[in-house]
Structures are given as C-alpha cells and as structure tokens.
C-alpha cells in the first residue's frame, strides 16, 4: 500500500480511537501528535523486516 495512503488511514483510525477514549475536545488537541504517530506507524509498517529478526529488548551480552 502507498505510504501516504497508509498514513492517512492510520491517522483516521487513531483519531476515532482518541475520541472514543478521551473525548472529542481532547482528540482535537492531540491531532498533530496523532498525525506524527500515524507517520511513524506508516514507516514502521512499510519497512521490510527480515523474517529472522525477533523483537529485541535488551542489548545482548558481549562475548
């Protein structure tokens, strides 16, 4: 999917969820941060993560 389209879809979904959880006034205040978050989500979703890479939590010990 096109990244801009994905970003717009994420932003729409996040704003709807913000309205549900925090109310319309608060969701409006959060608008610019939601747009940022949607942009980050679109970047992460579009990046081709290697199939072998598991989630990394801590730095691995030096051997």
């Amino acid at each position, binding site marked *: 999917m096109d990244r801009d389209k994905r970003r717009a879809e994420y932003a729409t979904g*996040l704003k709807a*969820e*913000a309205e549900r*959880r*925090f109310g319309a006034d*608060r969701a409006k*205040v*959060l608008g610019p*941060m*939601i747009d*940022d*978050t949607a*942009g*980050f*989500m679109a*970047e*992460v*979703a579009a*990046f081709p*993560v*290697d199939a072998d*890479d*598991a*989630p*990394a*939590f*801590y*730095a*691995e*010990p*030096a051997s």
Partner: protein
Amino acid sequence: MSLHERGAAETARAIREKTLSPVDLVEALLKRIEAVDPRVQAWALVDSAGARAAARQAADEVAKGVLRGPLHGVPFGAKDIFYSAGLRTEGGSKVMAGFVPGYDATSVARLKSAGAILLGKCHTTEFATYDPAPSRNPWNLACTPGGSSSGSAAAVAARTVPLALGTQTIGSNVRPASYCGLVGIKATFGRISTRGVMALSYTQDHVGLMARSVEDIALGLGVVAGHDPADPSSSRVPVPDYLSALTRRRAPRIGLLREFFFERATPEVAQITGQAVERLGRAGATVEEAKLPASFRAVHAAANLIVRSDTACIHAELHAEKAELYRPAIRGMIETGMLVPGDIYVRSLRIRGQFRRELLPLLERYDVLAMPTTPAPAPEGMATGDPQFQVPWSLSGLPSITVPCGLSASGLPLGLQLVSGVFTEAPLLAAAAWCEDVLGRGGAPTL
C-alpha cells in the same frame, strides 16, 4: 585554579593526598551555587545541610586514614528523576509534587558508597520528556542547556559541581552535555542500573554521566556500572577498569558517518565537525567514510513508537488519576502512546534487532563511529533542541559519548559524538580520551 573549577578526578586525588578538605570543597561549591544559580537555575534542590554533614564525615574519615572509595569527598548532582532517600524528588512534575523516596536509586547509592557527596537534585524536563525545565545554558543564558537532563548539564558547565547523573531515553544526556561544552556518556543498555529512576521506557532508559573530562567520566562510570539484581534489565557482563583503559589510548580507526548526520547538520556544524575530524586524521587516526545500514531509515519511527507505547504503559495509573496535572508534551505522549497497536510496537522492536545486527560489521571494522553530536548548537528559548542524532544509539542500546570539538560563531559549544559496540565502554573511553588530547578540553563559559 579556584576549587569550584576542579574536576572529579583531580579533587579525588587532592582529597586522598590530604591537600584538599571535602569541607572546603563543599563550601566553595555552595558559594558558587549562591553566586550563579539564580541565573543558571540548574538546581531543583540544594541539600546544603546534608552535603555539609557528609563532607565533615568524609573529612573525619580521611583524617583517620579511611577512604570509602575512588570518589571519597567528591560532590555530585543527580537529575531530579533519581530517587534520593529523604530528599524531595519531583521529576519536574506537579504529578509528583512533594514526593520523597524512601531509598536511593542504585546509581546514587553506588556513588555514595564510593565516598561521593550528593550536593542536590538538578532540574529535569517533566518526567524527562519535552516540557522544559527552567535551567539556562551557562554559555548563553538566552539558550537552552538542552534536555531532558537540563539541570545536570547546566550545573556541571557552571562549575557548581564536577560530576552529575543524567538519563537518556531519546537524546537526553549526550545532547545537553554537548550543548554545554561537556563530556557526556550514555553507556550500553544494561550497563548502569535504572532502579530508582523514574521510568519512561522499559528498553530505552539509560543512566548517563556528565563531567568536564573523559577521565572524570571514566572514574564515575567505574563506580556506577555493574550488575544490579534489583533491575531486571541489568547486565552481568563484568565491569573492566575504565581508568586503566585510558592509559592504553591510541589513535583510533574512525568510521565517519557523513550520510544523514552531516546532511542534517547546519553548514557551520558540518564544517566545524569536519575540521575536527581532519585534525584527528592528521594526528594519526584512520578515518574512513562509513555507510549506514538499510534499517537506519526506520529507526527514528521505531524508537518514537517504542518510547510512546512504554511511556503510556508506565504512566497509565498516574494518568488515570491526575491527567490534568501533566504538562502538554508528556500528556500527549502518554495519550498517543495508548493508541499504538500491538503489532506496530512489536514490529518496532524487530526493527531494533535488525538495526543492531546490521551495525555489527561496521562496529567490527572501526573502533568508533563518529558524527556531529547535534545538528546545531543550543537553540535560544525554552525548547530543548533536536535529539535526532542520539536516537539510533538510544534505540540500539549502543554506548555513545560526546567530547567538545569547537565553538560556533555565536560562541556556543559543539560536540563530536563517538559510538562503539555493546559493552565496549573501555575502548570507547580510550578513543574519546585520545580525541580529547588532540582537540582539547571544552573551556569554560563566562558567568
């Protein structure tokens, strides 16, 4: 040289040799705070009585031939998100107004056990995020000292304390150190315990140190590093002798990251940093241009989503009770973090794994990766500046350090950031000390 200008290692040596009394040193620093802190506003709380009592005790012990450790009698400051037993710790937030912890953060406790004296608590942005602290940059009071460890950087630069604890989740220790002409380190994730430090992220919170020389950082790191059974993310990797590593300093192999870092820097920062690297090359360092891995392009997005999600989780209960008391930036981070889907969060953690793996060949080829510490010098106003040059190293957990490398035309300090492999703080410090020898120390602001 006035007492307040002396560094941590130098004062520790003088106290050991009985040519300096911890009592005189603490009095000199309290006097310095009285003189400059109304303008700099580095300190959230100065524990004059506690520091004086600790200094008297340290002096008595020296007289009896007792030295608790390598920092005996040396004062330090702690960012106000470090728990300090019996001392107000508010994290720069109304949410924590009046909070007095019952115990010391592990790093504070370790410094005290090594003989160091807690002089007080340094201002922080709210919960170490973006809502600014009142602190000003000692090099130009119109400018920010950076954040979130604003007060720690300002206090050390203003010569009100030789050593301070800060933290870094995105870019909060190395950046303010650079803005204030200091040496600042963010060690490998897990190297320094985060127990007793107000949390933002489960996997990106790092304790850091700021001082005015690499030697002082090595001294402090040797004290605070090491396994802490009370911190589940704390590493068991043995702690080497960082001070002795400095005696093995030699010209390093430098992988220069022009891509992204020099491209995003202002022309002035790119020029001054480039000139500093040329000086290192002329002094014997091997300098090659290094290429960033493919996953680099996703690291800023991944880091931001991880921190927002973690912050939302960590603050969920306080937010449910006291949302109105939070300032706008941290409240927004918490609330947008609550909206991030689980699959995106896990994918961000996988990108971290891939980025760390793809960096390995670079970290094996070079002793350090080098780049400007910040895209620009400290900005005017209250906003705490741009952390984007720290983000990859906070996400990956790799150790990074900044050393001063020049002044902007406006007279503000600039730094050179060096990065190395996991748990390679000893060679990183040795390389930083070699660079410091070539580039010189950061100088002092006029206050």
